[in-house]
């Protein structure tokens, strides 16, 4: 590419290369000067923002990266990005720790007899070049990759006649993709337009936990609910966060999903859908009456009938299957039936859109078999494993893994020396997403930009650079990227891309039903009778990979409030039957595998199901694939017996019940507006009275706010021992409250910044006081550690630093320099992100005005995918917060105590 255009485009992206940092940290002994004042207005002490994309899951949300002194300290969603529009989930917030984790490989490594030894880049690359010249079928296996890198890998494989195997993801949604390939000739996951829909039916698809993009789903669900008449029913054979937040939740026996869909399809065909079902399908479609369906699924006939009626009455329904409904032997059938229902109800093209599809290059377990065959027959030459997580996602006995050593040369590319890379002969460290240039295509038509937010910390290289180097191309990865963009975008689009960090070029893609697919329909398989154990994805760990980050285990699971450790979820009925209690150790035996786990009762879990979250098991049971290549994660339990002892599970909630305290008031009861008489004088609040409103209807308990708070305020991660002692450190926690019917509501609880705080008068050294702006300020340097304030707090939101929790090594770079360091012996708690308030007031003061509504957004409010948290100045009568506090649903927790908290909650309306 021409130098001129390169520079032109580079100029558009104006990378602020910081040559050295300035000693802006107080308490630093040295004051280090810049060589040249940095361009782009980078001022020491002030943060700079750049674009990137999250690489934690295949959702690839757009990021806005906040960088201080050359090191990113906070990730936020990129406003306007088509996928996440300014929001970010829990895993994305925590993903910053991957940049700084101490286990990052710093130089290329070579496997020797005694372990791994560092080698220089040239040597490593030469070895690979030589091996590529040799005979053999070279293979390239990567994890989810989209955008220009994918094109480059394609070219690379073309050049060396290598096989770019379909990308490896454990939860590959292969059943749905195979079904779509058979039915609509598109092996992809279509997107959903919820705004268009009036009924959403999700079967097994854990859209708020990990399916496709939970942030996008969270956002869309809230928007959809704003239309009156929108209804969401979730049907599952486990108890997921998604399920408990749906308008209606039904549980069915695991394995009966295809029966349910057959029943629905029959109903649709009978009553006439928008499109007729072709005869080829009608011939093979099994009949299923309500009673038969009821017996098979375990639902009542009444429920089924009502479900059917609702489905038929819906004008623009949407059906999504996935998750535990398809990670089964009969997954392909379920997906085919779902596809047919989507077709017949006219969803394709309206609510279900192939123009928004993702995962177009994912493989499935059958491709692994191909890999295995190539390896076993000795044909395999160089095998590249890039960001696969192969060995963590598969059990170690999986034949593809055991055959790996047969390759002539195994080259691993990744960030840390995980189980997969340990199998490799040569390990090449690659840049973390935040250190790298790049682009993403999270779904068709949407492009995200990655711009480096910091100089690479180690001697890693961009994967693109490695490949171009091996191809002996004179281009750099950056040049390649710019070339691709020039080809793909017009000048105006390129400019927008560089300014916004994303661009959307909507694609219209229709679909037609392929009649030949009828051959794939099989008769209904019988529903298994025995107890089944399901391996399920979770909101904290995703498909298990995010559990590698300690923060994800530090934050408790929203449904069970278990933080560190592994457990087996059992239904309360089963536990009662066996006489078991929480934390009892049980031995689970499957065919060829067993494990001992502590149990936790989960209300709402069907009696036939046991669940374990992916990523929490030390070793995986053998994983087979169904007909579509999706891993079968449902296992027949051979025996379930009590083992000795109890598991040391930290269950952080004291009680799952509100004990009648009206913490989340029952909408039927009352109205508790008491007149408060106070012995304290009213404070004079001249300009600001900061307040927050949390809409419990919107809150789904995803804990993104908790993770954001952890990162923004560098809250220490304390570990399991402290959690077992009750010494959790989270400033913000999600409290799940179950009622007698097993329904659960989530309450985010943080310091309520009470205007008449019980914690203030009891501090012997005046370390806690109420500021002129309505905040409860904790002066860390004054605190002597009496802990009377924590004792007095009725919300129990004050946290004490029992120890000095200093993060190890490079993780210390995650510290937000805007906040004071808290050391042993200090009390800390939520401050409504006072550092952000201070920043906004600083800017406002420069412009000689007051802070406007919307200028200050605390970290929790900023990241909430549902937009449940609103923050602002209560003195400003035009602000969103003020208006929300006047809502009919507004109430304060423990209002009777007269604490006059600044946080108002909005009662959940429907359930």
């Amino acid at each position: 590419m021409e130098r001129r255009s390169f520079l032109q485009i580079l100029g558009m992206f104006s990378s602020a290369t910081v040559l050295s940092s300035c000693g802006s940290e107080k308490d630093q002994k040295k004051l280090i000067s810049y060589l040249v004042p940095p361009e782009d207005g980078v001022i020491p002490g002030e943060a700079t923002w750049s674009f990137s994309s999250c690489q934690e899951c295949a959702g690839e949300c757009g990021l806005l990266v906040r960088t201080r002194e050359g090191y990113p300290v906070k990730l936020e969603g990129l406003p306007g990005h088509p996928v996440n529009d300014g929001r970010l989930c829990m895993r994305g917030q925590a993903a910053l720790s991957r940049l700084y984790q101490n286990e990052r490989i710093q130089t290329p490594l070579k496997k020797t007899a005694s372990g791994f030894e560092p080698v220089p880049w040239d040597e490593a690359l030469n070895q690979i070049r030589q091996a590529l010249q040799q005979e053999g079928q070279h293979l390239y296996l990567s994890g989810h990759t989209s955008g220009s890198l994918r094109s480059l890998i394609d070219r690379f494989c073309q050049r060396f006649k290598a096989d770019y195997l379909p990308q490896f993801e454990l939860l590959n949604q292969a059943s749905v993709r195979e079904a779509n390939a058979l039915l609509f000739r598109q092996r992809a996951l279509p997107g959903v337009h919820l705004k268009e829909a009036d009924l959403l039916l999700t079967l097994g698809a854990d859209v708020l936990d990990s399916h496709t993009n939970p942030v996008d789903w969270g956002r869309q669900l809230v928007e959809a609910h704003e239309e009156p008449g929108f209804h969401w029913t979730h049907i599952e054979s486990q108890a997921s966060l998604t399920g408990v937040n749906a308008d209606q939740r039904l549980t069915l026996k695991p394995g009966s999903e295809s029966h349910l869909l057959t029943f629905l399809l029959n109903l649709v065909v009978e009553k006439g859908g928008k499109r007729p079902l072709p005869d080829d399908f009608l011939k093979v479609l099994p009949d299923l009456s309500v009673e038969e369906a009821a017996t098979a699924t375990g639902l009542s006939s009444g429920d089924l009938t009502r479900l059917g009626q609702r489905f038929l009455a819906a004008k623009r329904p949407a059906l999504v299957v996935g998750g535990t409904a398809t990670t089964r032997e009969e997954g392909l059938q379920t997906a085919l039936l779902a596809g047919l229902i989507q077709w017949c109800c006219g969803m394709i093209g309206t609510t279900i859109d192939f123009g928004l599809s993702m995962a177009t290059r994912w493989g499935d377990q059958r491709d692994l078999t191909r890999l295995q065959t190539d390896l076993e027959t000795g044909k395999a030459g160089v095998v590249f494993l890039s960001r696969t997580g192969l060995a963590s996602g598969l059990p170690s006995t999986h034949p593809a893994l055991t055959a790996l050593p047969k390759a002539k040369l195994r080259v691993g590319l990744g960030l840390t020396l995980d189980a997969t890379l340990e199998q490799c002969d040569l390990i090449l460290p690659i840049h973390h997403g935040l250190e790298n240039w790049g682009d993403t295509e999270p779904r068709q038509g949407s492009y995200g930009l990655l711009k480096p937010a910091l100089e690479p910390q180690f001697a890693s290289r961009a994967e693109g650079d490695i490949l171009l180097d091996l191809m002996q191309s004179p281009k750099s990865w950056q040049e390649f990227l710019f070339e691709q963009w020039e080809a793909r975008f017009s000048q105006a689009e390129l400019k927008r891309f560089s300014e916004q960090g994303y661009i959307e070029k909507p694609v219209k893609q229709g679909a037609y039903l392929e009649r030949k697919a009828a051959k794939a329909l099989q008769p209904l398989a019988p529903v298994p009778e025995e107890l089944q154990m399901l391996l399920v994805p979770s909101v904290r760990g995703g498909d298990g990979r995010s559990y590698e980050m300690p923060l994800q285990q530090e934050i408790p699971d929203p449904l069970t409030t278990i933080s560190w450790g592994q457990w087996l979820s059992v239904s309360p009925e089963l536990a009662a039957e066996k006489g078991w209690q929480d934390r009892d150790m049980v031995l689970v035996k499957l065919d060829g595998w067993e494990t001992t786990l502590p149990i936790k009762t989960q209300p709402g879990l069907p009696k036939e199901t046991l669940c374990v979250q992916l990523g929490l098991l030390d070793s995986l049971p053998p994983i087979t694939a169904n007909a579509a290549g999706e891993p079968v994660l449902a296992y027949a339990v051979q025996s379930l017996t009590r083992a000795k002892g109890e598991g040391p599970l930290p269950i952080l909630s004291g009680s799952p019940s509100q004990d009648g305290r009206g913490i989340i008031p029952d909408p039927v009861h009352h109205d508790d507006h008491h007149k408060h008489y106070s012995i304290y004088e009213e404070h004079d609040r001249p300009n600001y009275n900061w307040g927050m409103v949390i809409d419990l209807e919107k809150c789904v308990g995803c804990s993104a706010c908790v993770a954001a708070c952890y990162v923004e305020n560098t809250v220490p991660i304390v570990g399991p021992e402290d959690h077992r002692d009750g010494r959790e450190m989270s400033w913000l926690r999600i409290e799940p409250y179950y009622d007698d019917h097993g329904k659960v509501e989530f309450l985010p609880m943080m310091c309520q910044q009470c205007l008449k705080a019980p914690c203030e008068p009891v501090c012997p050294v005046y370390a806690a006081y109420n500021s002129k702006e309505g905040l409860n300020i904790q002066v860390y340097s004054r605190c002597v550690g009496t802990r009377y304030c924590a004792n007095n707090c009725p919300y129990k939101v004050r946290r004490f630093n029992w120890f000095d929790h200093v993060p190890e090594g490079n993780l210390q770079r995650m510290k937000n320099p805007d906040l004071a360091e808290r050391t042993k012996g200090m009390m800390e708690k939520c401050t409504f992100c006072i550092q952000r308030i201070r920043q906004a007031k600083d800017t406002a003061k420069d412009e000689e005005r007051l802070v406007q509504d919307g200028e200050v957004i605390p970290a929790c409010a900023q990241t909430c995918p549902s937009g449940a948290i609103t923050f602002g100045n209560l003195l400003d009568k035009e602000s969103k917060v003020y208006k929300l506090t006047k809502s009919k649903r507004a109430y304060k927790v423990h209002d009777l105590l007269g604490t006059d908290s600044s946080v108002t909650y909005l009662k959940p309306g429907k359930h």
Partner: protein
Amino acid sequence: MRLKELNWTRLIITGIILGLFGLFLGILAAQTGWWQLYAQTPEQPIDFPHTKHAGQLGLACTYCHIHVEKSREAGAPPLSICMGCHQKIATDKPEIQKLTRYYNEKKPVEWGRIHNLPSFIYFSHKRHLKGGVDCSNCHGAVKQMAEVKQVRPLKMGWCVSCHRTYDAPLECSTCHK
């Protein structure tokens, strides 16, 4: 016998007295050690005289300390500002040659920090400058210092007394972030 008793008492009393004074002498020695090790004005890598630049040449403080009006941190002046004049001026002086070497080798200069606030304090230079506080308020008559020293205590009491006098915010959270 009587002599023995008296000797013991004498010994003990003498011991106590010597011990007590010795203790405080020891404390004094320890404090002196601390003073020598930690509280001295640090050595600077380049002998930069403010007397010449700020004093004689009358350069404005913000000519070199460019971030002071825009940020909470003052930062050290970037080397390019020095080289702006010293490409040609006084190039025969050894200190200027040292400076030039730093610049050419692209090595940042590690100045010894003199005014050091603890890390839990929020202090914004920009805010103070906009509030009308002159540099010499807190940094003393730098124009007259051949070697910059800290001449104000920079302790909380002093900050608070000035804030009290000039109606600046007195809330704890203003500085204790």
